[in-house]
């Protein structure tokens, strides 16, 4: 399969969740001629099984398809998949940068939704040709004309050429394929120029090392070339190149305009950055492709096995996960309260949730996560600066000159009737107002500068609930600023529990302290003795609540000597206890460690 650049189309699909992105992708895969419907399914499953066996992420990444157009000519389509959450917006932008166009799928019964917009803007930023596709027109409640108008008015994309489809029935999909040929521009790279290949994704393969998914912007790459990854400067010998249909198809070389994969015995996925440019050692390009950003983990937390005997299992699982997840970082740490565990870094909260879920589900681990923290810059009186990712390790106050915390610039799009509550939320989180603008007749864009620490915990959830799910939110790191910060310690039964320490802003410390101790009192079950819960700053107690001793816990009656039933009730109680961590003499449930970030009474 070798095609002239003019017959290549590189595109992705943007859609709000449930608007039919994967159904449309499936339909496109079926209706292209590269493989028959039946074969395609088989191949797909084979590839998935293989992926499962090797324990790597199951996702489409990118797929190359052959399409026979009504104009009588054959085209090569490269459909590039994108993740869809604010934590991964950088990855989305890199995937889009590999394309010349995208399909914007909008549900004809729902219309444009807030969450679609962030991705549309990324597409516009990347100068993509956007083809509106109005889906689900087979449903009686569909309103294609209204949705067209909405797309034109709210996003500003002309809908004269909008495709009306039902991805479910296949109606109109053939026209979409023709539109792709007709409206999405062909890539314009120079095959003879020095190599510039954009990395948009990668995964680990235990036999071939890291498989790098690339889009060749200029030049050619072939087996035997020595390549250089421009951001890391590392050089490798190319052992394999090819395309995915979705089955891998080895090729001799990849040319400008093509999308495919490359293997070069790269051992560590952390050397391969999405957005980085690959060039040739012997004939390097002058400039890297624009838009590359090094992705640093923004959120850190401690991860501990509930059963301390499982430490090595956790280590093993983290190592395996990080083979395929360049953004996951971890190093061993010790907590007095929780024993041996790891300090882990994530791109954001969703990323943290995904990792936790995979560790628990795929590796059967029972975990305790400590409250997520950002990296603080702690300037010492001696002049040194410490990057602090674990609040309990904050040096003595007398040694500290200043603490700085990371800020983000956040853009929140919301229907205008919710602007008030959203501003209130931002103010509560120590946000600094920057801008407020109309997006269209009904929606506004609010710009705030916010401390990252204030959005890592449930900001997004709050935003959603304040706006009935309509607001969308995107943020960019904007630098460090000094803050009036202090470490808040939590004491259980008079002992400081290091895993419960957090960094708080002094102005809200009292309030936070009293909410947190009350929350802990609620979460920690009564023990055989009374347990005081105290919050303290610099050893000074600022809030206290007492967990009463258990007073009555016995099943009064056993009907007709039904001992089995009683034993089963006790089993349940035992199970509950197993999920708790004994800290000193106090049994603490897993979710207690998260609760130190509670900001509201009603959570």
């Amino acid at each position: 399969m070798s095609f002239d650049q003019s017959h290549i189309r590189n595109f992705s699909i943007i859609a709000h969740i449930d608007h039919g992105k994967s159904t449309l992708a499936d339909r496109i895969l079926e209706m292209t001629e590269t493989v028959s419907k039946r074969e395609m399914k088989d191949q797909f499953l084979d590839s998935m099984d293989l992926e499962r066996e090797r324990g790597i992420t199951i996702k489409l990444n990118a797929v190359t398809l052959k399409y026979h157009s009504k104009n009588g000519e054959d085209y090569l389509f490269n459909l590039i998949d994108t993740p869809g959450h604010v934590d991964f917006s950088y990855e989305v932008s890199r995937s889009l940068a590999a394309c010349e166009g995208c399909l914007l799928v909008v549900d004809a019964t729902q219309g444009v939704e807030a969450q679609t917009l962030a991705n549309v803007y990324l597409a516009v930023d990347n100068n993509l040709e956007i083809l509106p596709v109005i889906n689900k027109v087979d449903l009686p409640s569909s309103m294609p004309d209204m949705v067209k108008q909405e797309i034109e008015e709210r996003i500003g994309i002309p809908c004269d050429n909008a495709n009306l489809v039902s991805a479910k029935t296949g109606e109109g999909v053939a026209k979409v394929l023709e539109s792709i040929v007709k409206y999405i521009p062909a890539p314009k790279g120079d095959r003879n120029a020095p190599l510039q290949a954009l990395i948009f994704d990668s995964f680990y393969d235990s036999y071939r090392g890291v498989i790098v998914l690339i889009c060749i912007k200029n030049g050619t790459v072939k087996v035997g070339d020595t390549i250089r990854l421009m951001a890391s400067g590392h050089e490798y010998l190319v052992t394999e190149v090819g395309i995915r249909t979705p089955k891998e198809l080895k090729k001799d070389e990849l040319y400008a305009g093509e999308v495919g994969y490359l293997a070069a015995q790269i051992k560590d996925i952390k050397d391969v950055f999405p957005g980085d440019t690959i060039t040739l050692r012997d004939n390097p390009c002058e400039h890297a492709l624009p838009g590359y950003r090094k992705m640093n983990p923004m959120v850190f937390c401690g991860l501990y096995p509930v059963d301390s005997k499982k430490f090595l299992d956790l280590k093993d699982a983290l190592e395996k996960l990080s083979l395929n997840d360049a953004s996951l970082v971890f190093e061993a740490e010790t907590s007095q309260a929780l024993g041996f565990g790891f300090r882990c870094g994530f791109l954001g909260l969703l990323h943290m949730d995904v990792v936790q879920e995979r560790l628990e589900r795929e590796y059967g681990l029972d975990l305790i996560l400590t409250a997520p923290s950002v990296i603080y810059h702690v300037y010492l009186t001696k002049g040194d600066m410490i990057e602090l990712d674990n609040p309990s390790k904050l040096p003595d106050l007398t040694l500290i000159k200043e603490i700085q915390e990371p800020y983000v610039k956040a853009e929140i799009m919301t229907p205008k009737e919710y602007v008030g509550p959203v501003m209130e939320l931002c103010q509560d989180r120590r946000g600094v107002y920057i801008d407020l603008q109309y997006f269209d007749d009904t929606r506004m864009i609010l710009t705030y500068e916010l401390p990252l620490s204030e959005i890592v915990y449930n900001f997004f959830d709050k935003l959603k609930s304040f706006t009935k799910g309509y607001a969308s939110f995107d943020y960019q790191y904007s630098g460090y600023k000094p803050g009036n910060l202090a470490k808040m310690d939590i004491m259980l039964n008079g002992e400081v529990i290091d895993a419960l320490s957090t960094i708080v802003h002094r102005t809200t410390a009292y309030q936070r302290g009293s909410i947190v101790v009350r929350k802990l009192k609620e979460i920690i079950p009564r023990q055989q003795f009374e347990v005081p819960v105290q919050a303290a700053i610099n050893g000074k107690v600022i809030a206290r609540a007492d967990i009463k001793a258990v007073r009555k816990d016995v099943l009064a009656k056993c009907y007709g000597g039904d001992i089995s039933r009683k034993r089963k009730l006790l089993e349940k109680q035992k199970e509950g206890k197993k999920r708790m961590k004994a800290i000193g003499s106090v049994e603490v449930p897993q979710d207690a460690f998260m609760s130190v970030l509670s900001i509201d009474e009603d959570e």
Partner: protein
Amino acid sequence: MNKPRSLYIHIPFCSHICHYCDFVKLFYNNKFSEPCLKALFAEIDSYHIDKVDTIYIGGGTPTSLSDEEFTSLLDKVKDFLTPNGEFTVEANVENLTKEKLEIMKSRGVNRLSIGVESTNDGILKAIGRYHTYEEAVKVVKLAKQYISNINVDLIYGFPHQSEEDLRKDIKNILSLDVDHISIYSLIVSECTKFYKDGVKEQDQDESRKFYDIILKELRENGYERYEISNYARNGKYSRHNLVYWHNQEYYGVGLGASGYIAGARYTNTKSLKQYLEGNCVDIKETLSKDELLEEYLLCHFRLEKGFAKNDFKNRFDQEFTEVFRGKIDSLIERKLLIIGKENVRLSDDGMAIMDNVIVSLLG
């Protein structure tokens, strides 16, 4: 293997359904009661029972049976009892008639357990009992003319029940002048009217306050709390219930009954249809060593005396203090567990939070 020395018989019929009752019960109707008794007799025959030291007929409401049915039931089992055996029948105030008492007396029933439950007529009505306190007083008086060894049941922890209400109940119950009193806190189980009505159990602080009042009052009036919910004077313990708490074996027959024979616990079917077809046993399990240990503790710790160290060692080949090394020190320090010369037992505080103590030993 020795055969069990106790027999529990479950009569699943009631003339009314109480709002808190979570046991297997059906409205009394002779269309069902006759075949049910027939199936019960067949089940009893299937065990080839020789002699037992205790018989307990519970329910449901055994006295809801017709006099003829009731007579045939007692005739069926009375000869199993050894000469000094204990023969208990549960009765409700409303259908404990002179006739029933005569039938019982003549068939060797020597212990009665009467469901008084409350001495407050408002509460009695609210929980679906069809008697008044005054009627209860009369029935107890009547019953004493036939059978001297009487237990009355009392429940505490009803919604809106005040401490005053409780003290009045205690005073009234004491005035009945019976040898045995069982006092349970209200449990709201699923599948009860109370549960569906959203009735809440007392919180543990209130419940403990009430429990302590009961304990103090009854002790001061000459009753011994020999089990967590059971009080006796003149040594009139329930010998049958002690079989359960000493973790000993017993036959259990009747719809939904449970039993313990030859190291296996079983529970009968709750389906009348299955039962009538003779498919009595629904679940049967032989206990693992850990489960045996668990049951041993949860039975014996209900008793004021706990268990004898020797008995534990005989059953488990190890000293109690060995098995639970490292776990008992804090319990002793917190004055929940008492290791005596002969016996191991829980303190008053320990008994009140027994489940918690056991979990900390076994967890």
